[in-house]
């Protein structure tokens, strides 16, 4: 605990990261109660107030059909965080499993698994996702699927290299001499030593998944209207720059705050958990 405080004290930016992340999470969780116009989350039209800049009524202005941008950002955070959490609930475990087995067992297991990983890593992530979304229908579920498919190989690579070096440690030799099972050695001995790096990467990735998901929606391949999404809001508003600047600037800032927050927090965790880059 004292160590935690000390590291936070030495690295005030990680504290800022924690505050930003907490704000984003709170905003998403409390969206139905704190947003000024909860109904603007869906297909609502209010042309009286359409396309207005920031006012006392609408702090961040309104969009082309008169919906409150602040309310839509709060709801969009819900979608973004949900999507990131789903992706990070699936991709890291899959990648970790592949990386652990390849790194510890070696031989043909390593050859087969890591060549598959290399194939995925050789395709630029966004291109892979765009290709998948071109084949599939652009829905939230498919967006999550596409991002997950492009995400797990990075964890496989990370864990593979960690497991490779842990395999040389004396404690693995000790477990082998005792006769412990492969399952025990990989999951109970090696995995705990890889966890700090995995957790750090997951925190950093929360932000990156938000960016990728937003990029997909920006291209019209992600979450579809009328559901609010930060990427599609920026895309829609981009056509009306610079006059109706509030259409893009506020959703853009919202992305920035979330990504920045998770990045700073991830850096702080890296120091706290003692992970070498």
């Amino acid at each position, binding site marked *: 605990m004292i160590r935690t405080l000390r590291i936070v004290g030495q690295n005030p930016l990680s504290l800022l990261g924690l505050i930003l992340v907490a704000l984003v999470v709170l905003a998403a969780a409390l969206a139905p109660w704190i947003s000024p116009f909860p109904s603007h989350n869906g297909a609502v039209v209010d042309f009286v107030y359409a396309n207005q800049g920031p006012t006392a009524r609408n702090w961040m202005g309104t969009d082309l059909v008169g919906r409150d941008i602040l309310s839509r950002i709060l709801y969009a955070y819900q979608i973004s965080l949900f999507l990131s959490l789903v992706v990070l609930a699936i991709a890291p475990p899959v990648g970790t499993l592949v990386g652990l087995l390849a790194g510890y067992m070696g031989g043909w297991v390593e050859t087969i698994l890591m060549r598959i990983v290399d194939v995925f890593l050789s395709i630029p992530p966004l291109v892979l996702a765009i290709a998948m979304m071109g084949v599939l229908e652009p829905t939230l579920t498919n967006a999550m699927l596409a991002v997950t498919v492009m995400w797990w190989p990075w964890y496989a690579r990370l864990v593979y290299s960690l497991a490779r070096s842990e395999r040389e*440690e*004396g*404690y693995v*030799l*000790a*477990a*082998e*001499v*005792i*006769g*412990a*099972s492969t399952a*025990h050695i990989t999951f*109970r*001995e090696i995995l*705990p*030593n890889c*966890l700090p790096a995995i957790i750090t990467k997951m925190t950093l990735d929360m932000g990156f998944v938000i960016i990728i998901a937003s990029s997909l929606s920006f291209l019209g391949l992600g979450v579809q209207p009328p559901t609010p999404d930060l990427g599609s809001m920026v895309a829609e508003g981009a056509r009306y720059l610079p006059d109706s600047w509030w259409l893009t600037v506020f959703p853009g800032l919202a992305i920035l705050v979330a990504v920045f927050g998770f990045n700073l927090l991830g850096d702080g965790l890296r120091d706290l958990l003692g992970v070498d880059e």
Partner: protein
Amino acid sequence: MTLLTVKNLSKTFDTGRGPIHAVRDVSLSAGEGECLAIVGESGSGKTTFANMLLGLLAATSGEIIFDGKPLQPRRSARDRQAIQLVQQNPLSSLNPKRTIGASVRLVLDTHRIGDRANRWKTVERALEAVGIPGDMRTRAPSSLSGGQRQRVGIARALACHPRLLVLDEPTSALDVLVQARILRLLNQLREDRGLAYIFITHDLAVVRNIADRVAVFQSGKLVELGTTEQIFSYPQDGYTRSLIGAVPVVDENELALRNKLAVTP
């Protein structure tokens, strides 16, 4: 009674630049309760030899007979249990993310020794037998001194009641005062439990004070084998003599002995 017999054991590694003969045609034996030291420098094949004894590497040719029966390349759980290892670096040999108790308990769980319910008690007794208080079992390796960690390493190796212990430079990472205590502990455990030791080291002064017999390895070959008394009275092989000649000594008696043994007769 002979516990271990090694017959014409060889190990060749095939590399891109041709074969490397790590161990060449080594034959030796160790009796029950005996401490056999294996002495050699880097590249002597002593680690490869130990890995074959432990069943971590398959021999290219030759056989290992333990307790009257040849050991198979795929070791049974019983055979694994009978030959255990203490490593050089106790900091690396204990998993930093697990408590020392969990590291010792792994042995009991793997070999299903005793009742599940009593295993923590067994772990505590195993730790106490090497001089670590039982209630320290919840501690992480990082909170222990080097000597304490090596004691835990010994407790773990002994937890499944092996008959032969392979000790790979067990004290060379320790301070000299700690080394003295660990060597005494190893001697006492051997006496109490009738253990046999294969004691791998490069330190001839340690060998002199702990081993019954000495095997000197050079480039994968066994160049000299004899009782400790013989080796330190009339070393036969030139390489053995040069090793003795390189030992740093601290008193006049040692200096006289070294000068006497190091010269060619």
